[in-house]
Each structure stands twice: as C-alpha cells, then as structure tokens.
C-alpha cells in the first residue's frame, strides 16, 4: 500500500531533507541547470515549480513565501525579476529532467535538472556567454606564454 505517501524521503530526516531541497532549489535558480541524482531532481522539481508559480504572482506575500525557502535575497530577486517573467504564458512545466549517466561508485542514476527555455532565451544566453568569454580572452594567452617560457628555460 502506498496510501498517503506524498513524497520521497531520500533517506534523510525531515530537517535534513528540507535543508537539502532548499540548497538544491537555490542552486537551480542560481545556475539554471544542475546535475544531481534523478530521485533528488524529481523532488526538487516539485518545490521549484511551486516557487516559480508563486513568483509569477509577483506580490509581497508571494515574495515572503518564496524567501522562506530560497537562500539569499539576490536569488529571490533573480527568481522574481528574471526567471518568473520567462514563464508568464507557460502554465506549469517550467523545468526539465534529463537522465545523463550512472554515477561511478554507487551506480546512482544521475540527471540534469534545468529550467525550460525558449529558443530566444537560449540565443540570449549564448550571446552573454560569448561576451563573457571575449572579456576573458587574454587569460588563456598568458598561459601559453608561460609554457613557452618554461620550455625556453629548459
């Protein structure tokens, strides 16, 4: 019988599990894509979807409800200002889980939990990434020079 079994326990006490899910959901909103075990991803998805729906309401009460879970004001702000508007017209299903591999050591099922994005948002992300890479470009050159210097010394 699986009556009234609402969620997975994830082999943790209530407080441990709550802390874990808070950490995972904060990591998801920070990085927009995280890799964990599929079991953890599925539990995190429930919480993340609920929080995004709160954030779409965009009032003070919903902001306080979200801040009770998500660590850090900056991430709460990001959720309300950047993430929630992406899903203004999407009725749920804001996240996606993809299975990636079996973890070495315990053969755990690993997956990627990510925020679903439209092609335009992806193009925007790519553009930002390239800009960041362009700003950082001189750094790898330095490394090459150092290697040459070392080779020259020998």
């Amino acid at each position, binding site marked *: 019988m699986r009556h009234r079994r609402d969620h997975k326990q994830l082999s943790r006490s209530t407080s441990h599990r709550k802390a874990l899910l808070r950490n995972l959901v904060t990591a998801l909103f920070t990085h927009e894509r995280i890799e964990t075990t599929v079991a953890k991803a599925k539990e995190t998805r429930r919480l993340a979807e609920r929080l995004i729906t709160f954030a779409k309401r965009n009032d003070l009460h919903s902001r306080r409800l979200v801040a009770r879970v998500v660590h850090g004001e900056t991430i709460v702000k990001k959720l309300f200002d950047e993430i929630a508007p992406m899903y203004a017209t999407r009725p749920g299903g804001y996240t996606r889980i*993809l*299975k*990636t*591999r079996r973890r070495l050591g315990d053969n755990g099922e690993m997956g*990627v939990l990510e925020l679903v994005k439209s092609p335009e948002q992806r193009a925007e992300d790519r553009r930002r990434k390239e800009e960041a890479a362009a700003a950082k470009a001189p750094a790898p050159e330095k490394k090459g020079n150092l290697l040459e210097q070392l080779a020259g010394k020998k």
Partner: protein
Amino acid sequence: MALPKRRHSSTRRDKRRGQWKLEAPSVSRCNHYRSAKRPHYVCPQCGYYNNEEIVAVHE
C-alpha cells in the same frame, strides 16, 4: 515451526539455479551521433538528446 524434512540433492539445487539467467541490457541508438546508448538517457558520446539538447559536450 516449519522445517525441511529432507535435504535437497545437488541435482535439485543445480536445476533450480539453472533457471537463473542474465538479461541483455536494452540499447537504443543516438539520433545525432548514431552510437549505441541507453534508452531515455542523454547520449554519452555527443551529449545530445532528442536531436537537439546539448547537455555536456566534452572533447
């Protein structure tokens, strides 16, 4: 308490164990890279799933 009345012969034991068989793992093919992969998993060779999702390209 129920107890075995007689010892089972080695033949009976081995006949029982003769039914233990390994199953072949199910394998599917990556649409993008044409390599073998687990069904419902991201292709470990190219990091693609459903022809488009780039998840982890490392080469």
